[in-house]
C-alpha cells in the first residue's frame, strides 16, 4: 500500500494527540461509541480511529442520530462509509422519538429538528448503555466549545455544566463518569477547520459531494442560503434559484446553510477557506437563535 505522509509537523502532532485520546477512550470505557453525523469532522475522526487501532478492527460502533431531514447524499455516503470501515452502524431516528411522544416537533417556517436530536441521542445512550460518546467537535468552531475539555462529563440528564468542569492536567485523563452520567470525548479539540481539510488532502479521504461546488436550488432565509428540500420549502417571499454552491458544514437540511462556491476539489476548497472572512458556523441557522445558542443546546445534552 502506498504510504500517505502528513506534510506538516502541526498536523502530525494533532493526529498523535487525537490517536492518544481515542486510545484512552477505548481503554477507559466499557462501551464507547463514535457519534457519526456524516460530516467531515466525524469522517476524519473515524479514519483516525481506524488508524489508531490498526492492524485491528475499528473498536467503536458508529452512532448516527438521523433527524429525518438529512440530505440523501449524506445517508448514502454514511452506509457506504460504514461498510468500508468495517464499522457497526447504529442509526436512531428523531422520527421515532416524536412518534413515541418523547419530544414535540417545532412548528412554523423556522422549525428545525436540530435541537430535538439531543432527546434521541440521550435515549440512544441509555438504550445502548454507552459510557462514552466520542465526537468530532472542535474548539475553534464556536465560543462555548472553545471551553470544553477533551474528556467532558455529562450528568444523568446529559447536561454539560460548564461552570463545574473537571480539571485536566497534561495528558492524564480521568473519564470516570458522574452518577448515571456519561463522558463525551473530543479527540479533535485542538484542530481547526483548515487542519481538517489539510488532513483530508494528505490522507486522501473521500467526502460526500455536498462539500464540493455543485448546482442546487437554494433560497435565502435570515441571511442563510438554504437548499430547497421536502423539509425546507421557501415561503412566498423567499425566491428559489439555481446556484452553484457547496456546504461548509453538513447537518440537518433545515438549518445547514450553503455558500456560493466554485471549489470543486480539496485544494480549491482549501484555497477558498484561506480567503474566507466568515467562520464555519456563520452558515448554521441553529447557532443564530441567540448568542448562547450552542451553550444552551449543550446544557441540554447536545453533541
Amino acid at each position: 500500500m502506498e504510504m500517505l505522509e502528513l506534510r506538516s509537523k502541526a498536523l502530525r502532532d494533532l493526529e498523535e494527540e487525537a490517536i492518544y485520546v481515542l486510545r484512552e477512550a477505548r481503554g477507559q470505557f466499557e462501551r464507547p461509541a463514535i457519534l457519526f453525523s456524516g460530516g467531515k469532522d466525524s469522517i476524519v475522526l473515524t479514519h483516525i480511529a481506524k488508524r489508531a487501532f490498526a492492524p485491528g478492527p475499528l473498536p467503536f460502533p458508529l452512532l448516527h442520530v438521523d433527524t429525518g431531514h438529512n440530505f440523501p447524499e449524506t445517508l448514502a455516503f454514511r452506509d457506504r462509509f460504514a461498510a468500508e470501515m468495517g464499522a457497526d452502524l447504529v442509526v436512531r431516528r428523531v422520527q421515532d422519538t416524536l412518534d413515541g411522544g418523547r419530544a414535540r416537533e417545532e412548528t412554523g417556517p423556522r422549525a428545525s429538528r436540530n435541537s430535538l436530536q439531543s432527546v434521541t441521542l440521550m435515549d440512544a445512550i441509555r438504550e445502548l448503555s454507552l459510557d462514552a460518546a466520542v465526537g468530532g467537535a472542535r474548539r475553534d468552531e464556536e465560543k462555548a466549545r472553545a471551553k470544553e475539555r477533551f474528556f467532558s462529563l455529562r450528568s444523568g440528564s446529559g447536561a454539560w455544566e460548564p461552570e463545574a468542569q473537571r480539571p485536566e492536567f497534561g495528558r492524564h485523563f480521568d473519564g470516570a463518569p458522574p452518577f448515571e452520567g456519561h463522558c463525551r470525548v473530543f479527540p479533535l479539540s485542538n484542530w481547526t477547520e483548515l487542519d481538517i481539510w489539510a488532513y483530508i488532502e494528505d490522507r486522501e479521504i473521500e467526502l460526500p459531494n455536498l462539500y464540493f461546488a455543485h448546482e442546487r436550488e437554494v433560497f435565502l432565509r435570515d441571511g442563510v442560503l438554504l437548499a430547497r428540500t421536502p423539509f425546507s420549502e421557501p415561503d412566498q417571499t423567499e425566491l428559489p434559484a439555481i446556484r452553484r454552491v457547496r456546504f461548509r458544514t453538513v447537518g440537518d437540511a433545515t438549518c445547514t446553510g450553503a455558500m456560493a462556491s466554485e471549489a470543486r476539489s480539496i485544494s480549491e476548497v482549501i484555497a477558498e477557506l484561506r480567503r474566507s472572512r466568515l467562520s464555519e458556523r456563520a452558515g448554521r441557522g441553529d447557532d443564530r437563535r441567540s448568542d448562547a445558542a450552542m451553550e444552551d443546546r449543550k446544557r441540554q445534552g447536545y453533541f
Partner: protein
Amino acid sequence: MERIVRIAAAGSVDDGKSTLIGRLLLETGSLFDDQLSEIDVASARRGRNGRDLAFATDGLREERERNITLDAAYRHLQIGARRFLLADAPGHAEYTQNMVTAASTADLLIVLVDASRETALQTHRHLAIAAWLQKPVLLAVNKMDLVGYDREVFERVAPSLIAFGKRLGCPEVEAVPISAFHGDNVTEPSPAMPWYEGPPLLEQLANSPFPGKAAEAREPTLPVQNVFSHEGLTVVTGTLQGGALAVGNRLGSATVARLWVAGEEVEVAQPGQPVAAGLESANAVARGDWLSLYYILSGRFLATVFWMHPDPLRLFMRYQLRIGPRVVNATVRRIANLIELQSGCRHTATTVAANELAELEIELDEEVPLALYGQDPDLGSFILVDPKGATVAAGTIDRILPKRFKSAFGAPVFWLTGLSGAGKSSIAEAAVEQLRASGIEAAHLDGDTLRSGLCSDLGFSAVDRLENIRRTAEVAKLIAEQGRPVICSLISPLVAHREQARRILGPTYHEVFIKCELDECVRRDPKGLYARALAGKIPQFTGIGAPYEPPIAPDLVLDTESLDLDECVDRLATFVRGEVAQ
C-alpha cells in the same frame, strides 16, 4: 509547518487577559467577520461603550453577564509562519484549577499584571504555579495607559515580580509594558513608551525559541494504552517515548515483530509517534504497563501536588493515581511541606485544601516504573482521583525514595550455585544489567574473579574450597549491610559449602540453583575446562574428579537446558525485585 506553540494567559481577575487575547486575535486577523459582528452585538446588548474584546473568549452566558472568565477558552492564531493555541485562563482564586489545566499543556505562560493597582495575590500564585510546572513566563504589565505610560511604574512593578518568579524557580521571566485596551506594545512598538526598548509582545512570541520536548537519547518506552491480538501477535498501542524503536528490537521482555505508526506499517518508529507494536512471545501485558528497561521501579516518592477539589486531602485514604493509561492505588503518607503560593515559603501543615500547593510523600500499593518531572514532564506527572471518580489533585514527581528491605539485616544476597558451564556468570551479569536499568544497583561477586584476586592464594582442596566460600559470603555480607543487593555466582558444590554461606548471611541468604545436567555442561564446555579435566589435566574438577551435590530446597531453580538465557535472566531479575521490594 513547525509545531503549534501553546500559550496560556494568566494573571489576576480584571488585569485584562481576555481583552489582551481579544486584541491579539483581532490584530492578527484571527477573528472572522461574523464573530466580530457577534462580539459587537453582544457588547451593545450589554451596554458596552464600543467593542468589548473580552467577548471573543468569554463565550459563556454567565461569563458575559458577570464579566469574568470561569474557564479556559482555547483559540488559534497565527503570527507569520508560527501557529499558536492560546488559552485564556481564569483569574479568580476559586477557578485556579482551571488555570492549572490551561498551564499544564502550555509552552509559555503570559502573566498579566495591572500596573495601576497593587500587585494582586493571584499574580504571585500564578507565578508560583509557573515555577512548579517549570514554564517560562512573559509578564505583560498591562493598563500602562492608566498610569500615564510612566516608566517608573513599570520599573517598580516588573523587577520585583521577575525576582519573585526566579526565586521560586521559573526557568525564564521577562516583562513587557503594554496597554491591551489601546494596543500599545501588543503588535506595534508603542509611541507612548519610547523608553521601552524591547520588542512588542507579539514579536516576542513570534521570535522566542520554543524547542518543545527535548529529544533525549534513551531507551524506547511504551506506556501501553490498549492490548489486542492480531495474527498470533500481541499488539500493544501507545505513544512512543524516549528513543526510537525498530522491528527486531526488544521491548520489555518481548521482541517487536511488526510495527505501525498511525496505521501505516513501518520498520522504525520515532519518539512522540503513536505506535502499535506487534510483540512475539509476550508475557502478560496489560494497559498501563510501561514496556521499557529504563525506568526506576519504586512504590514511594516525593511529589509537588496542587489540590483541586473542595474536599481537602485525607492522609492514608486510598486514592487512584493516574499517569496517562496507568492506574495504581496510592496513599499520601506525609505532608512534607505546604508551599505558600503568595510568598513561596514552605511550612508544615496537617491538611491540604483546594488551590493549595504542597510537597507530599506518596506511597503506591505496588512497585511501578517511575520518572521524574524534571526529566520527563509527561511520565513524571500524575493526577489523583478519589473514590467517587473526581480529579482531586495534580502532581509532579520530584524524588523517588529508596526502597525499604524486607530483612532488617540489609539487602538480600542471591547465591547462584551450579556446575561449571551451567550459565551462572552469564545469568548473573545480565541480571545485574537489567536490574540497574530498573533502578536496582546490585553487586556481582563471581567465583572466577574472586579466585584471581581476593582468593588467589586458595586451591581446590576441601579446606580451600570452604575458605573460598567463607570469604565470598563475608564480602557479600559487608556489601548487603550497606543496602546493595548482591548476586554471588560460584560453583559451591557441596551442601556444606552453601550451609556455611547461609550461616554467615542469615535471613538475607537466597539460594538459586542454576540447573544443567553434566552431559550438557561437558558438551557446552565454554572454557575448555571439561576437556582438560577429562584428559586428567585438572584434578578435583567438579563433576569429573570431585562431586557436585544439588541443593535440597533452593529458593529458585533456573533450568538452563529448558529455558533460554533471556528467560533465566528475567526470572532471576523478577525474583530479586520481589525480594528487594518492601
